[in-house]
């Protein structure tokens, strides 16, 4: 399938689900008004589905090939971000950020351990200092007991 058709299919499904959910929006106290909280969403869903169908059946020039993509590296980077989101509050800002940076440096192909540790520690430490001391933003540096 052509790339624009894959996109059109995904968007059509998104718009259809959005439209289906739009029918669950209650129109309380708005019977006498020409529009209510559900009007715009229903219109957008209809418009989105129509445009997606039109795009699906249209002829589009084939875009440049994507080339070789490193999906494994992306997957690891996303995993690092998800872990960071889970631990940022529990482990404290400095340990969580040091771990996240070190892990993503490794995922990106950096193999010099001392460089990884030094940059990760320095960035998280300096950033924490900047935030707490200069901008007055409170960030718990270590795990809260």
């Amino acid at each position, binding site marked *: 399938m052509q790339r624009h058709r894959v996109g059109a299919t995904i968007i059509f499904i998104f718009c259809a689900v959005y439209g289906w959910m739009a029918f669950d929006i209650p129109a309380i106290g708005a019977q006498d008004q020409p529009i209510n909280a559900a009007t715009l969403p229903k219109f957008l869903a209809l418009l989105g589905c129509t445009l997606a169908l039109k795009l699906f059946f249209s002829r589009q020039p084939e875009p440049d090939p994507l080339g070789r993509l490193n999906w494994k590296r992306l997957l690891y*980077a996303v995993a690092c971000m998800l872990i960071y989101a889970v631990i940022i509050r529990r482990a404290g800002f400095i340990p969580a950020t040091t771990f996240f940076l070190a892990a993503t440096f490794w995922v990106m192909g950096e193999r010099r351990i001392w460089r990884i540790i030094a940059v990760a520690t320095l960035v998280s430490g300096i950033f924490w200092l900047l935030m707490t001391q200069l901008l007055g933003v409170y960030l718990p540096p270590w795990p809260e007991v």
Partner: protein
Amino acid sequence: MLEGLATGFTTALSLQNLAFLLTGCVAGTFIGMLPGLGPMTAIALMIPIAASLDPVAGIIMMAAVYYGAIFGGSTSAILINAPGVASTVPTALDGYPLAQQGQAAKALRVAALASFSGGIIAALFLLLAAPTLAKVSLAFQSSDYFALMILGLVCVAAFAGPGGMLKALLMTVIGMMLATVGTDQTQGIPRFTLGSVDLIDGISFLLLVMATFALAEALLNILGKTGASGRTLNPVVMGGDRLSKSEVRDISPPVVRSSVLGFFVGLLPGAGATIASFLAYGTEQRLDRKPLPDKDKQGRQPFGQGSLKGLAAPEAANNAAATGSFVPLLTLGLPGSGTTAIMLGALIAYGIQPGPMLYVSSPEVFWSVIVSMWVGNIVLLFLNLPLIPYIAKILYLPRQLLMPLVLFFSLVGVYLVSFNTFDLFLMILLGLAAVAMRLLDYPMAPMILGFILGGLIEENLNRALLIHDNSWAFIWERPLTLTILMLALLVLLAPLVSGLVRRKHQTPAD
């Protein structure tokens, strides 16, 4: 106007605001220089910092980041043939050959001078046009704004390029859909919150911009889409940066012509800096009377091989268009491009509604933005230019260290505003969706415009209906609303009609 200018100068030149302007210019240059990270990403990354400042300082800093990033984009285009954004592609056509000939410093100086002139000339036009347009638009009502915003959305989609109109329109609709998440403004009914308390206030604008630009850009880089991943570049020879009198004489007319052209193209919603720079390059190439592929007697290179004119024209147009795009933003509250849409979102976050009332209610914001453009251009010329050899070192840093840092700043930028980890998960989800759409060749800027204007369209439509006793008659009874809506229809139908006409003309030949 003079009084306003004085207010602008006093505000923009205060020590604190000057410091933010300097920071913005340097930070913008840094970020804009990184291949793949354009002005939109630069502004998005700076929003969390700007949010902690007072509105005037925040807006001055973001405007400075904007033209700093444009300047930075030109630098990477000249030094390593990696235009950060589409608008700097024409810059690379002649800038990179110059750098390869050992004249990188001269190319950077020409780019900076042309950008400076473009910015100054356009800011002068802005100074004259904005207050007049603001006064005229004071007569606008909610219904006219509703129509104007429809026109803005349609224009952006229409300027999306061949074959891209449908995709741009679809992305605009998706942006508007995302804007409906959260509590409805008029009736207070929660929509699409999936029962989550975290979505009651809707999706934050900062989160969406960070996810779809900064985070997505870094993830695409990690995926290897932008090509330069992991590659360490070798520094180019900077050479001398002196320009001879004849060279200055040679590039002056193209700079003035391109500045004027760029400003007017920038006024059009959706056209922006990319069209302006390509148009200026094409125009100057046609006007050039040296078709021979060799140097002439004065050592001038032809277009595409290191022509100073070919470098100066798109640079002037690029910067002038960036300034021009501020006119509809400041006077009508209508963003003409993705970048000004982000600026509009930031202004709204500050509680400032751009539009004709901005000129009346917050003159210090209005005038200091205009004045800061002049000061910003001067800063770029006199401070950034000497620093370029040092700032450019960031280009030679290994990607494996840079990209994780961009991921970190994007995530932390959003986390520091809400301190809610739900936002981080939502951001990762939206970032991945943006990566998928980018790989499928769907543009992101129309989505941001749809997101910003979606809420405003619904709000203005509700208000217009309320004013007109719940009657739709305002659409055809109010001449201004009708004219703007007809114009929007015309813009929407023009490509379809021209396509039909072209097909009709082609059929007999086939």
